[in-house]
């Protein structure tokens, strides 16, 4: 630890989720200060939100948010078991229960809250517990091991989580609630009832309107709980989850201003009534409100860091809307869920058979959404939340926001979003932040990304971010470049034309003629995909190999630990017993994890880069081909069993699926392509969710196009009906080639269709009526690709030059020692970081 004399001494009391976030933000701010963290618990910060996962197998280590080493690397002095009992604001000291004294220039209280235990006689018996810390969990586990029945007192959000935990621990579980319904804060009565029904059907018994008067010894069980209405319940374990109270004792002792019902009063900078003492998280009271969720606590932490380091940013309150899954039941609550605002009007949708309840609350002026309740289906949550947070004008028929029919819930364009709308939840970037970055001179997507960090986490917001940036730039009169990246001033479609017309075969040639710089991870794979669509050369030639994403380079999908998966093609999902046995043999020989995929084939995971050629050599020898699971290419053609076996089948869907898969395998495209073929209208192959979906009819085949599962599901559009085999193939040839030619990079057919001017009818015009006169050319192009098909793995194992790439080290045969596995359910899985540290992992075996 370096103790420079000028560095500001900052002491943080409490190392919960918010206290830890504060430390992280402060360290990242780059300000040099001398940071001391005093944790009242025996461990450093861990993830309280996922506490319940402890009962489904997570360990304290998995939940940890940090460790001593990390804090040490950050130069943070962290002390555990350091319960602070006293603050001396004049002398600027804090004192722990063991008498240690720490000096501060600025003090931060992040002491969180503690569970409220109602004053019921008998509440201090040994198996009466609470649910807040890992120590509590250990106590619950120990007690559950000697119990048969468990009761949770309190049917709120945390109570139900706790009930789930007891259920997972194998106890007969009851929830006792004082109010007439569950989750009374977030849900209305019908919503609460719906939830109750679902939870009861999962085997948890719910008792509402029960006031516990005493806890005494039981007859069948350890204890008996007597209720105000003269009924009782016997149980071995009681878990109190009747609300939380802010841990404000230190504030009280020190004379800081507190709220009437507790909580340390803070201003927008999170300072308490003593300007050198900050309070953040659940112990803090802002405008008379306590925020019992992590996100507002994190916002407070950021505000406090900003103030301490002289940056801008203050705490401006937070939305308490919630969406969660309780025992598998989806529940959402937004804003004024109870319609308490004067004049509020309500729409409800109550679907008892499906167990879905939705309520939409709008204001008296019928202009905006002010609240919502969702039980059983929260798919509308995100859109409703944007409406509520940003005061977006209601659509013509507000009920369409919650009604299931049509499925056309109005999606939101960039302009409809208000400044506070969250664009990137990973890095908490709002639309306002993005507008601010653009105003400050970021005039490209890349600059906005690096300045705001938006879209650098999970990437789920990429499309929305681009939308917002494009629309904002357009508003400022900037002509938005449709260029693929900084190296080419062309769209993917334009590059396709250039490559085809000028017969360009290599990236270097393309770059010299039309680009600048060296290219990048955007234009290189895009160009590689176009070369493949147009020329269909082997992708691992010396020229093409450096262009490919790692998945294409190594002809496998990279997993989180740097190993690869192996997915051989199983056309139509049909596989012989011998091939199954071979897959099993290979998996055993190379110690691979085996799983059936969602695409009707078998995935072998955990292959190290240097093992891939040997594995594939065995597979190819046994008649397998690559499945292109790694490529933006045709993936699978799913099938149902069809007329050969199924009593309802009207056509042979399996043969059709195999034929189609064999025709289009190896076709590289802007994104992956999936097909399915169903043998009758019952649709067991789920063809309507595929890029190309085919459903058998008495007379032939119905063709559906541009469906999508995944992140934004879309039902395919019915394109043509009762087609014969020849016409079916002709249409598919044309559609796929037209897609490969005209779509943007990484655009699935669904999005392509939605952006296609003229939509479905235009596409029908191009394909069926050949309005552009390119039908035959498209077919010929497809035929060339089919004719030039080669199994990339077969080519690779026969090419010594290509094989050289399949090794971890150029100068050693060693394996990557960071790849370690542990056993789970009789197979391997990657060791977690914690497991690697404790060396529990099975070291890599060299096969």
């Amino acid at each position: 630890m370096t103790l420079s004399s000028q560095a500001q001494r900052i002491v943080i009391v409490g190392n919960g989720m918010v206290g830890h976030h504060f430390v992280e933000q402060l360290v990242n701010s780059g300000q040099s200060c001398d940071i001391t963290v005093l944790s009242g618990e025996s461990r450093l910060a861990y993830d309280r939100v996922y506490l319940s996962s402890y009962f489904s197998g997570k360990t304290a280590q998995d939940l940890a948010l940090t460790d001593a080493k990390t804090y040490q690397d950050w130069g943070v002095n962290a002390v555990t078991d350091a319960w602070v009992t006293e603050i001396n604001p004049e002398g600027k000291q804090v004192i722990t229960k063991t008498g240690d004294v720490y000096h501060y220039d600025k003090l931060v209280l992040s002491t969180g809250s503690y569970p409220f235990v109602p004053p019921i006689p008998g509440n201090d018996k040994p198996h009466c517990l609470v649910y807040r810390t890992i120590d509590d969990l250990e106590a619950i586990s120990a007690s559950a091991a000697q119990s048969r029945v468990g009761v949770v007192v309190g049917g709120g959000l945390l109570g139900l989580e706790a009930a789930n935990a007891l259920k997972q621990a194998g106890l007969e579980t009851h929830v006792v609630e004082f109010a007439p319904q569950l989750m009374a804060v977030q849900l209305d009565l019908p919503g609460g009832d719906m939830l109750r029904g679902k939870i009861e059907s999962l085997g948890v018994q719910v008792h509402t309107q029960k006031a516990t008067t005493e806890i005494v010894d039981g007859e069948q069980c350890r204890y008996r709980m007597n209720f105000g209405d003269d009924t009782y319940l016997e149980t071995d374990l009681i878990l109190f989850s009747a609300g939380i109270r802010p841990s404000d004792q230190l504030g009280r002792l020190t004379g800081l201003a507190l709220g009437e019902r507790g909580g340390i009063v803070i201003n927008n900078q999170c300072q308490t009534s003593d300007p050198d003492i900050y309070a953040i998280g659940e112990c803090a009271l802002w405008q008379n409100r306590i925020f019992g969720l992590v996100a507002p606590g994190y916002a407070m932490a950021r505000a406090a860091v900003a103030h301490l380091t002289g940056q801008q940013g203050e705490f401006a309150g937070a939305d308490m809307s919630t969406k969660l899954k309780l025992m598998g039941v989806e529940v959402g609550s937004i804003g004024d869920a109870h319609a308490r605002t004067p004049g509020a009007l309500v729409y409800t949708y109550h679907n008892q058979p499906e167990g879905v309840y939705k309520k939409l609350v709008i204001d008296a002026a019928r202009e905006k959404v002010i609240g919502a309740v969702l039980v059983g289906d929260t798919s509308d949550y995100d859109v409703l939340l944007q409406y509520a947070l940003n005061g977006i004008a209601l659509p013509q028929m507000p009920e369409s926001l919650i009604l299931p029919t049509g499925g056309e819930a109005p999606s939101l364009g960039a302009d409809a979003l208000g400044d506070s709308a969250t664009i990137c939840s990973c890095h908490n970037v709002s639309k306002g932040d993005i507008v601010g970055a653009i105003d400050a001179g970021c005039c490209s997507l890349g600059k906005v990304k690096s300045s705001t960090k938006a879209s650098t986490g999970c990437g789920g917001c990429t499309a929305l971010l681009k939308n917002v940036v494009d629309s904002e730039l357009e508003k400022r009169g900037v002509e938005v470049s449709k260029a693929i990246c900084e190296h080419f001033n062309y769209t993917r479609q334009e590059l396709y034309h250039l490559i085809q017309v000028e017969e360009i075969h290599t990236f270097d040639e393309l770059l010299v003629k039309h680009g600048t710089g060296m290219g990048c991870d955007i234009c290189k794979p895009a160009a590689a995909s176009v070369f493949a669509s147009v020329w269909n050369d082997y992708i691992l030639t010396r020229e093409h190999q450096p262009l490919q994403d790692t998945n294409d380079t190594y002809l496998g999908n990279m997993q989180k630990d740097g190993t690869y998966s192996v997915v051989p093609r199983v056309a139509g999902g049909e596989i012989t017993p011998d091939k199954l046995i071979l897959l099993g043999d290979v998996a055993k020989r190379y110690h691979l994890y085996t799983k059936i995929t969602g695409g009707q084939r078998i995935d072998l995971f955990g292959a190290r880069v240097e093992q891939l050629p040997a594995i594939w050599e065995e597979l190819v020898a046994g008649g397998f081909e690559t499945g292109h699971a790694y490529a933006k290419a045709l993936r699978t053609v799913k099938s149902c069993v069809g007329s050969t076996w199924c009593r309802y089948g009207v056509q042979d869907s399996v043969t059709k699926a195999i034929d189609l898969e064999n025709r289009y395998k190896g076709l590289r495209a802007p994104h992956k392509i999936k097909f399915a073929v169903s043998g009758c209208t019952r649709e067991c192959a789920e063809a309507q969710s595929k890029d190309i979906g085919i459903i058998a009819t008495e007379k032939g085949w119905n063709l559906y196009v541009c469906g999508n599962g995944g992140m934004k599901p879309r039902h395919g559009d019915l394109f043509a009906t009762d087609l014969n085999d020849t016409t079916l193939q002709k249409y598919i040839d044309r559609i796929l080639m037209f897609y490969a030619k005209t779509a943007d990079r990484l655009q699935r057919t669904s999005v392509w269709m939605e952006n296609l001017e003229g939509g479905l009818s235009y596409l029908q015009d191009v394909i069926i009526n050949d309005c552009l006169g390119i039908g035959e050319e498209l077919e010929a192009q497809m035929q060339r690709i089919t004719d030039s098909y080669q199994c990339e793995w077969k080519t690779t194992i026969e090419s010594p030059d290509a094989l050289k790439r399949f090794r971890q080290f150029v100068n050693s045969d060693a394996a990557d020692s960071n790849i370690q596995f542990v056993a789970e359910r009789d197979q391997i899985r990657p060791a977690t970081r914690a497991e690697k540290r404790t060396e529990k992992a099975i070291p890599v075996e060299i096969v």
Partner: protein
Amino acid sequence: MQAQASFTPKWHDVCDIDDLVTNSGVCALVEDQQVALFLTGGEEGKQIFAISNWDPVGQANVLYRGILGTISTDIVVASPLYKEHYVLETGKCVERNDVSVAVFPVRVDSQRVLVQL
């Protein structure tokens, strides 16, 4: 890491220049340290870079398998896992200022590639 001060960096002979792949990466094992080696062949002629192979965000030894490119004038590699870019010259991460990777001096001596660490 504290012990590092007592080490004097040494040049290690790792491989032949022909073992490198133009505009792509390979990895060498040098005293337990995985070193990603990249050979670029831009207009300014060929250049070789050596950085640590450990992806600090993805927590795996994979950087040599990333795609090379430029961001304005910086030559970068994109992590194959989560696509952060690292500047080959400095090891700095373009998207995040809280992570970076080690860079090592590298030179070629009669067809052999040498790395210093």
